[in-house]
């Protein structure tokens, strides 16, 4: 009897879906409420990439060819070249995501620490009530996760002594000192975004190193851990006028037996200099609303 009811319900549902879809295409009366549009008026809102002021980004001509890379210059407004969402990296670092095909060289402590992290994505994903991602409550996203989760717009500026990165995500900035100072061996005050120095290794390649990072942050959206020994190396290679390749390597002997590559030549594309990077902030009150609704979705 129960089976018959289920079969009937499925058939009914399929029929109803078919009718509904027909109505959506503008071919029917639209059912109750009279809110459906007249036949033939349905149209899809097409995707148009816009900036923070809602202004459309002009498409490049098909025969466009980028100019040569400028010498020792990373400045400009950038976003993932493959597409403006290619830096989301929901399942963890793009080139070593948390999936069946990738295994990180954890130390026993690294494995143990990772198991204590309960992310919403990757092979160790949990329901939200068990999720302990510090970014869920708007703790600073930190380095290197600022590059490994929701990497969207980023403006790079240069002075004689610094390279500065201004990120869309969390609207934070980082600075790489290139005035000759060296990173200390010990840090009295770990920082969410660490302490960074950088240098040009040739006219088109800038290498930055960051240490002194706060252990409360996660490396990526899959909860990969780090210790106070983490060193993040970022290599920015200017391929031409329009492309920077970013390679990011993780070294942390407490958590990993060997360095591993989180981003391998990840391409950033140059945007027009009139592009306004939109606000994308983690608001504690909005996050609380989000978390409450999500908790309702799993409440038994």
């Amino acid at each position, binding site marked *: 009897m129960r089976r018959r009811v289920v079969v009937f*319900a499925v058939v*009914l*549902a*399929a029929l109803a*879906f078919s009718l*509904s879809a027909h109505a*959506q295409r*503008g071919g029917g009366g*639209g059912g*109750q*409420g009279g*809110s*459906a*549009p*007249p036949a033939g*008026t*349905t*149209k*899809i*809102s*097409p*995707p*148009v*990439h*816009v900036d923070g002021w*809602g202004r459309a980004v002009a498409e490049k001509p098909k025969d466009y060819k980028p100019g040569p890379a400028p010498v020792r210059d990373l400045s400009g407004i950038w976003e*993932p070249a*493959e*597409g*403006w*969402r*290619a830096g*989301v990296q*929901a399942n963890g670092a793009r080139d070593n995501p948390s999936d069946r095909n990738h295994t990180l060289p954890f130390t026993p402590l690294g494995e143990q620490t990772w198991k204590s992290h309960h*992310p*919403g*994505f990757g092979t160790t*994903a*949990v*329901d*939200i009530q068990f*999720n302990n*991602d510090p970014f*869920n409550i708007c703790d600073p996203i930190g380095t290197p996760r600022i590059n490994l989760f929701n990497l969207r717009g980023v403006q790079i500026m240069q002075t004689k002594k610094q390279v500065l990165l201004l990120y869309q995500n969390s609207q934070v900035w980082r600075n790489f000192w290139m005035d000759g100072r060296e990173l200390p061996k010990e840090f009295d005050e770990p920082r969410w975004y660490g302490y960074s120095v950088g240098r040009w290794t040739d006219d088109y390649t800038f290498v930055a190193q960051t240490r002194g990072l706060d252990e409360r942050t996660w490396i990526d959206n899959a909860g990969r851990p780090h210790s106070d020994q983490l060193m993040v190396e970022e290599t920015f290679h200017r391929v031409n006028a329009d492309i920077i390749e970013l390679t990011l390597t993780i070294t942390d002997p407490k958590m990993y037996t060997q360095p591993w590559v989180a981003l391998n030549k990840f391409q950033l594309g140059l945007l027009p200099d009139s592009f306004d990077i*939109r606000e*994308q*902030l*983690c*608001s504690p009150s*909005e*996050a609380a*609303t*989000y978390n409450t*609704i*999500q908790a*309702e*979705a*799993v*409440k*038994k």
Partner: protein
Amino acid sequence: MKHAFHREEHMKQMFILCTVLALTAPVAAHHGNASTENKTVVMKATVVQWLWTNPHTFLKFDAKDDSGNVTQWTAEWNNPSTLVNFGLTAKTFKAGDEVTVTLDGVAKSGAPIGRIKEVMLANGTVMRYDGVAGTGR
């Protein structure tokens, strides 16, 4: 017993209030999809509130079943930074708007919470995030 009752209620909601079809094309939520069951649900709805918020947006709406019973749903959509590229803004919906909402996932708990696939406005425009433009996922 409570569980059985809950399941009956869930089925009633799904098959009487809504239109249901199983699908396999989830849109990833900010904190994961573990709490969501992949299903397509189409409803005529009246907008209650449009929350243009981070990390994700929410549309709250009332949907009425054939018996006239109204259920208020809360449906999650993508981040504003993504949706602006698909024509959506903080002012796309206002309370009282008549729309047709298509969800592609519903809460496993049976609560009237879902994940938006697209929303058709009263003028026939379908607001849709296709998950391809912009790539990423």
